[in-house]
Structures are given as structure tokens and as C-alpha cells.
């Protein structure tokens, strides 16, 4: 048991409470919030050091000392630490931009506390090993994000916010339904215990059929959070309505919570389960659950890539274009998972697929963070993001434009930027699969890549090139904001040039996903997991 696991969570929570207490002192409030952001980064570094100190450490913390599976367990393994690291960097950058750009009264009212609570919810979702607790952290994250989306509370924001709230409330109800059903059918809420029981359902009296249905329901909820087609309706509205730094967080990090949940639950916990021979599922009888999930994820990924890409190409507003692009990019993120699902966790293709997804998720987090922060800086000073009102920004603000250029190119996947390796790995998985699904994935990636080139080029050409008009000539962004955005862009370049360590990290995270056995042993004790090892490897 190691208490360091709870450190990022507690720091963020402390930051949130500190912000609530300092409401009457604006300067101190901003200081506390920034301190919370820096402290979160330090706590993450400390946690990462603890996790990576031992080559395959899985750190476990039992809340209030209640042993798993009875109490709530927090687990930090290499997968969660990577995503928390992404959160720490992007949230600190967005926080600094918030301090400089959100109007003073807004910051005083509630902005910082909400922002910190959103980070608390995100961190909790990455750390928890209990599916009901996951629901609670989702709610913490969502409730803060509801208010942040309607923060400016104009006509546009209230309408988009309403849509966002109603869709997510329905999603929450469905999530609770699925979790309650899973508890009734499997008798546990602990992820490790779920994995152990699903590995030998007969021994625990579990009917796999209902479990398959309920996990399918749960998959819809995670797809809603990740903004995959056909659950993407809230994305453009909410992204345009939210203040720009919040949009950077929503697109860069909050969406990844959905992706993380899909990886953790479907490719580690539920991956060990097999569809029963009886019960009317004769087409896929005897196959692992992954076959069904893989098919569903494949369809959602293909539709997201195409619909998001085509949608982005036709937009005349920079923010809207980026929002549609984000739908398309999440399609790219989950596509390798669909290919991986055609094999079992022991296979090299499975490893390659999960690895590609993790790498692409990190890339997308940084790239969308940069792009939305740039578009936010432009909107703050020009007042609009319609292409008809923009032009010539590259002359007026070369550094800002450079950051956008790097973000755009990394979405396209130009070497030596970080994005190149993401695209490379996604293509590689498709080609290596040597089956129909693999070739479909390659085709979709190709079409999606062409669409990405089209819309990024269009955004660049319409907004950043050409002669500056009278609105753009006013554009003077505060140097510290430019510096932070440029810093994120430099991270993208640096991670591309020094890709080897990133690859090692993502590879370690993939091992953590695949080795469900080790996860179960770490959470439930050494002698608990013998069943799973025999089942699949």
C-alpha cells in the first residue's frame, strides 16, 4: 500500500478548496490556483518516479484501509501515470492562459474552483479501480465542466450547455444502469475482482450473456464521453461555447478519459471474458468479448474519421473546424483498438494496437491543446473566428501562428513532429493485421489523413495567410500567453525528435494493459490471480 497514489488527487482537491476559500482576494486566488497547478505537476512527477522506479510496479492504495474488493481502491500503473502526466502538462498551460485571458470578475466568481474540481474528477477517473467510483469521478468532472461550458452564459452558451448537460445526464443514467447491472450479475464492483471472476464465470456463477450486454451499454457511455460518432452531437456546440482554455482541456484531456476507460476496461478487465455457447448468440459463440467490442469500435471509429473529417473540411469558423477535427481524430485514436480486438491479449498485434492508441491519444492531447489555445487567443483579440473576418495572422503574430502550424502539422503527421509517429503506428497496425479489418483500417486512415491535410491547409490558408485586415491588425497577444502556447508546441517537436523515451513509456503502459494478471495480483493479493494466467496466455 502506497499513499503516493493519492497525491495528485489530494493536491488538486486542496487546490479546489483553496480557491473556494480565497474568493474574496482575487490576487491570492489566482496564486492559489496556479500553485495548485504546479503542485499537481510535482505530485505527478513524484508518482511517476514511484511507478517507474520498479520496472513493473503497480501501486495500490486502499482508501481508509478497506481491503479490495470490499473498499474503494486507487491504482497507479504505467497506463494511468501517462494519462495523468498529459493532464498535468496541458492543464497547467491552460490554467496560465486562463489567468491571463478570462475576465477578472469571472475568475473571482467560480472559474478557478471549477477548473480545479474538473482536474480532480479527471485524476480520480484515471486512478480508480472501482467501476462505481469511476462513475462518481465522471460526475465530479462533468459537473464542473457543465458550469465551465456555460461560463459566459450568453445565448449561444446556454443553448450548447443545455445540449451538453442533457446528453451527459442521459449518459450518466445509462452508466449507472450498466454498473448496477454488472454488480447484480457479477457480484463485484472492483475492476481486478471483475477480471478475476470473468476469467472463470462458471466458478462464480456468472452468466456471461448479460455481462456482454451491460458492458456494451457501458461502451456507449464511454463513446459519448470520447465524442465518437454517433454520440458526437454535443462536441461542436460545447467546444465553441466553453472559454478557450476550457475547450483545450475538454478536447485535450477530458475526451481521453473516455479513451482511457475503454482501454482499461475493455482491453484489460473485460478482455478475459468469453461469450457463452448458448443464449442466442450463435454467430459469435465461444469467441472472446473483444470480437463484439472490436466490431462496434471499428464502426464508430470509421464513422468518426469520415464524418468528423468531412465536417471539418466544410466549416467556415476556426473553432468549429477544430471541433469537427477532434471528432475525426478520436476516430484515429480508437481505430487501432478495433484492429487489436481481432486477436487475444497475448498477441503481438494486440500490443501494437493498444500501443498505437496510447501514443495517438497523447499526441492528440498536446496538439488540440495548442490549437484551441491559439484559436482562443485569436478570438479574444479579434472577436471572431469566422474565416471571412480573418487573414494574415502569420504576419501579425508569427510565434502564435508558428505554434498553430506545428499543431496542425502534427495532426497531419509530418515528420519529425510527434504526430508522424502516431500516424505511422496506426498504419503499421493496419498493415500488420493482414486481415480484412486491418485493410479497412488502412483505407480509413488514408482517407482520414487526406481529409486532415485538406482542413488544416484550409484553416492555415484562410486564417493565417494573406493580407491582414483591420480586425487582425489589432491582434496583440500577451507575451506570456504566447510563451506558454509556444512551450506546448516545442514539447510536440521535442517529443517527435526524442520519440524513443515516449515509445518506451507507451510500451510499458501497453504491458500494464495486457498483463491483467499482474493487475489482479497487485490489487487482490499474490495468490488471487492464478485463474487468468491459465486462461489466455
Amino acid at each position, binding site marked *: 500500500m502506497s499513499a503516493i497514489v493519492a497525491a495528485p488527487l489530494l493536491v488538486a482537491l486542496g487546490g479546489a478548496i483553496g480557491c473556494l476559500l480565497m474568493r474574496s482576494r482575487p490576487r491570492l486566488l489566482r496564486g492559489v490556483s496556479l500553485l495548485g497547478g504546479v503542485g499537481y505537476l510535482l505530485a505527478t512527477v513524484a508518482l511517476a518516479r514511484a511507478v517507474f522506479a520498479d520496472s513493473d510496479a503497480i501501486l495500490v492504495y486502499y482508501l481508509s484501509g478497506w481491503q479490495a474488493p470490499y473498499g474503494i481502491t486507487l491504482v497507479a500503473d504505467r497506463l494511468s501515470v501517462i494519462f495523468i502526466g498529459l493532464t498535468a502538462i496541458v492543464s497547467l498551460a491552460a490554467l496560465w492562459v486562463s489567468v491571463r485571458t478570462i475576465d477578472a470578475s469571472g475568475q473571482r466568481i467560480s472559474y478557478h474552483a471549477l477548473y480545479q474540481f474538473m482536474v480532480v474528477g479527471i485524476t480520480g477517473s484515471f486512478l480508480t479501480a472501482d467501476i*462505481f467510483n469511476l462513475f*462518481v469521478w465522471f*460526475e465530479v468532472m462533468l*459537473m464542473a465542466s*457543465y*458550469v465551465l461550458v*456555460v461560463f459566459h*452564459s*450568453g*445565448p449561444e452558451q*446556454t*443553448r450548447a*450547455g*443545455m445540449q451538453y*448537460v*442533457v446528453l451527459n*445526464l*442521459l449518459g*450518466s*443514467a445509462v452508466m*449507472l*444502469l450498466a454498473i*448496477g*447491472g454488472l*454488480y*447484480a450479475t457479477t457480484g463485484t*464492483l472492483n475492476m481486478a475482482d471483475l477480471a478475476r471472476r470473468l476469467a472463470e464465470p462458471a466458478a462464480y456463477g456468472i452468466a456471461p450473456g448479460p455481462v456482454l450486454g451491460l458492458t456494451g451499454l457501458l461502451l456507449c457511455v464511454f463513446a459519448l464521453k470520447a465524442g465518437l460518432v454517433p454520440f458526437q452531437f454535443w462536441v461542436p456546440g460545447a467546444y465553441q461555447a466553453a472559454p478557450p482554455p476550457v475547450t483545450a482541456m475538454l478536447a485535450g484531456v477530458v475526451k481521453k478519459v473516455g479513451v482511457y476507460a475503454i482501454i482499461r476496461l475493455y482491453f484489460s478487465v473485460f478482455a478475459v471474458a468469453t461469450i457463452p455457447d448458448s443464449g442466442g448468440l450463435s454467430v459469435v459463440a465461444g469467441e472472446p468479448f473483444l470480437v463484439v467490442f472490436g466490431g462496434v469500435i471499428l464502426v464508430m471509429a470509421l464513422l468518426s474519421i469520415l464524418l468528423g473529417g468531412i465536417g471539418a473540411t466544410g466549416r467556415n469558423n476556426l473553432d468549429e473546424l477544430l471541433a469537427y477535427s477532434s471528432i475525426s481524430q478520436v476516430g484515429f485514436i480508437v481505430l487501432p483498438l478495433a484492429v487489436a480486438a481481432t486477436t487475444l491479449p497475448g498477441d503481438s498485434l494486440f500490443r501494437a494496437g493498444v500501443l498505437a492508441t496510447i501514443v495517438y491519444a497523447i499526441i492528440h492531447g498536446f496538439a488540440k491543446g495548442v490549437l484551441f489555445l491559439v484559436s482562443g487567443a485569436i478570438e479574444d483579440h479579434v472577436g471572431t473566428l469566422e474565416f471571412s473576418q480573418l487573414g494574415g495572422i502569420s504576419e501579425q503574430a508569427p510565434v502564435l501562428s508558428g505554434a498553430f502550424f506545428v499543431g496542425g502539422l502534427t495532426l497531419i503527421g509530418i515528420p519529425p513532429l510527434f504526430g508522424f509517429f502516431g500516424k505511422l503506428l496506426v498504419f503499421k497496425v493496419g498493415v500488420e493485421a493482414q486481415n480484412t479489418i486491418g485493410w479497412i483500417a488502412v483505407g480509413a486512415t488514408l482517407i482520414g489523413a487526406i481529409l486532415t491535410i485538406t482542413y488544416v491547409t484550409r484553416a492555415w490558408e484562410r486564417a493565417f495567410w494573406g493580407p491582414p485586415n483591420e480586425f487582425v491588425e489589432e491582434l496583440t497577444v500577451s507575451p506570456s500567453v504566447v510563451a506558454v502556447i509556444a512551450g506546448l508546441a516545442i514539447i510536440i517537436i521535442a517529443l517527435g525528435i526524442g520519440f524513443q523515451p515516449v515509445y518506451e513509456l507507451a510500451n510499458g503502459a501497453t504491458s500494464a494493459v495486457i498483463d491483467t494478471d499482474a493487475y489482479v495480483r497487485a490489487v487482490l493479493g499474490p495468490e488471487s490471480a492464478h485463474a487468468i494466467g491459465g486462461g489466455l496466455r
Partner: protein
Amino acid sequence: MTEVVLAIVLGALYALGTFLVLRRDVVRVVWGVTIISQATNVYLVTMGGIHGSIPIVSHGGGGHHAVTDPLVQALVLTAIVIGFGTTALALVLTYRLYQEHGTLDLQELATTEESQ
């Protein structure tokens, strides 16, 4: 028997909630969402089994009679509190929507979006 009745009630609640969510009036949509989330709470309690006795261990040990699973009831309490907060937020948001747009009809809200 109670479980059959509850199953029918649950079906009716979900049907009603779905019906309301598909209305044009925002207030009805919010009601629909609220009913669906409440129905989910009822479902959770039902899933815990309602045959056993109250899950309180009396003095000197529990005895051998079956008790109802107390965990689902703890889960439902959490879910109710969360539902309370989100419903309040949704209602406030509905009011703000009316203030900003002067209508709560989804069709009209969509047309104002197009005209901008």
C-alpha cells in the same frame, strides 16, 4: 411478486422518461431526464434484492436470516445526491435558456441558431 411489480414500474418509468425526453419543450426534456435517472435508482435497489431483512446486524451477531445487500443502497444514496445536484443545474440552465432566448421550444431554439 414484488420484483415483477417493480419490473413493470421500471418499464413504465423508462417509457415515460423516454417519451418526455423526445418532447419539444425543454422543461419536459429535463423532467424526462430526471425520471430516467430516478428510474435507474429504483433499478439499482431492485438489483440488490428486496427479499431479505434490513441490513442491520443486531446485538450479538447477525443470525442466519438473509439480509438485503446494503451496498446497492449506499450506491443509490450517492447516485441520488449526484442526481439532486445535476437536476438543480439543469433547471437553472432551463431558466437561463428562457431568459436568453425567450422561448423553451426546441424547434424555435434551432431556428434562432440558423438565423444568426
